[in-house]
């Protein structure tokens, strides 16, 4: 099954891949497994290979104590052992036990009915866990810097409240290198909703960054999309709407 993840999702151009530090942090469990980058790693053979190597490195250093047991898939039917005859003196305790079991089963049925209601919510969550590809073109965008102007949300820059595979075309004359894309409620970047890092790739003279952002918990409304240059932390803000 490891071969499946290592070979079934080739991505030699490393499109949308998180940076090494993110992968390493996930492998070493310094980052929450809830991170959207996990979704990418599970569907990118190159990233999985990197993740696995970091994980094995950690295991070799003796910092990891996991049983690398393969996935057990059992399709066999269970074996039933024939029961012995029950002595009469056990009849009364067994009857009490049976009554208790009936009570537990009854409670289980009731709970199942309650859970079936919750299943609808779970299905909705599943739908939201599928990443949505969005492209944001900032090539000709006017930037906001610092805390001066009143933001006017741009109608065309909107993101869904879901896991987003975001491709950002950076503004004209942007330097290449590593960038962090941040979605925050304020321009000070204190109420960060989602964050992702990536390295620029050039296409037709335009620099772009691919990141995966988890906006499932973002309530619809006005936000700021910030691009933070890795080399000097140069930060630019763009008004954004989450729907």
């Amino acid at each position: 099954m490891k071969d499946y993840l290592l070979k079934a999702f080739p991505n030699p151009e490393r499109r949308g891949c998180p940076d090494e530090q993110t992968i390493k942090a996930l492998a070493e469990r310094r980052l929450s497994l809830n991170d959207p980058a996990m979704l990418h790693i599970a569907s990118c053979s190159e990233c999985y290979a990197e993740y696995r190597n970091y994980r094995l490195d950690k295991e070799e250093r003796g910092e990891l104590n996991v049983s690398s047991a393969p996935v057990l898939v059992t399709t066999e039917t269970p074996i039933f052992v024939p029961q012995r005859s029950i002595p009469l003196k056990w009849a009364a305790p067994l009857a009490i036990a049976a009554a208790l079991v009936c009570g537990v089963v009854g409670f289980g049925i009731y709970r199942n009915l309650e859970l079936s209601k919750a299943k609808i919510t779970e299905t909705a969550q599943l739908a939201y866990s599928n990443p949505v590809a969005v492209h944001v073109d900032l090539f000709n965008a006017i930037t906001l810097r610092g805390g001066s102007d009143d933001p006017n949300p741009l109608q065309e820059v909107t993101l869904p409240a879901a896991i987003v595979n975001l491709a950002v075309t950076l503004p004209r004359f942007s330097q290449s290198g590593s960038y962090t894309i941040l979605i925050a409620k304020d321009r000070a970047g204190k109420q960060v909703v989602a964050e992702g890092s990536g390295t620029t790739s050039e296409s037709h003279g335009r620099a772009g960054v691919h990141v995966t952002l988890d906006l499932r918990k973002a309530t619809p409304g006005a936000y700021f999309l910030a691009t933070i240059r890795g080399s000097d932390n140069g930060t630019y803000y763009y008004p954004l709407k989450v729907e």
Partner: protein
Amino acid sequence: MTRAELHLVDTAGRPVRPSVQAAVEDAFRWAIRNCPLVDAALIANWSEEVACSMETIAAELRNPARYAAAALNGKVRDWQRTGAAKLETMGMGCDLERVGGTSERIQGALDRKVFFEQIKATLNDRDQVILLLLLDGSSDTEVASALAVTSSTGRKAIQRVKERIAATLKVSRVKNDPEHGTRTLCPTKG
């Protein structure tokens, strides 16, 4: 073969820069671990070649670690393709297969590819994450926390993934062995 045994120099015999050295040493270590059947000396040679070529383009390299890993993996894969062909055993069966254009190796690769495609079609993104964590040896609780669900929901999700893989495996086995499990009727009796 340890790190110290790698002789990482550029074309003029000068030691390569530290970033290239670290990247190539990591890639070398990973390749040795991932390909235990390939001679470590061969991997060391390729690592030194990769380091030398990386040094010439070091200024343009955005990510030396990923470059080194990809380059070294490519060299190992190339060798596995050509090297395995040289080690092929001779005989009538092999000759016929070669004339027919198929071999057990190719058939195996094809079967595996088909199987991978079937699993890919069966599992969604969330299932993929569950599978990854299970392969890591993660506990049910860890899987549940990764999915941001309760332990019982996590366990159910794990069970579903296992069932889906089992179903795919079953279909794949039946396809590979169509006679398996079929009733053989005696033609002389009613």
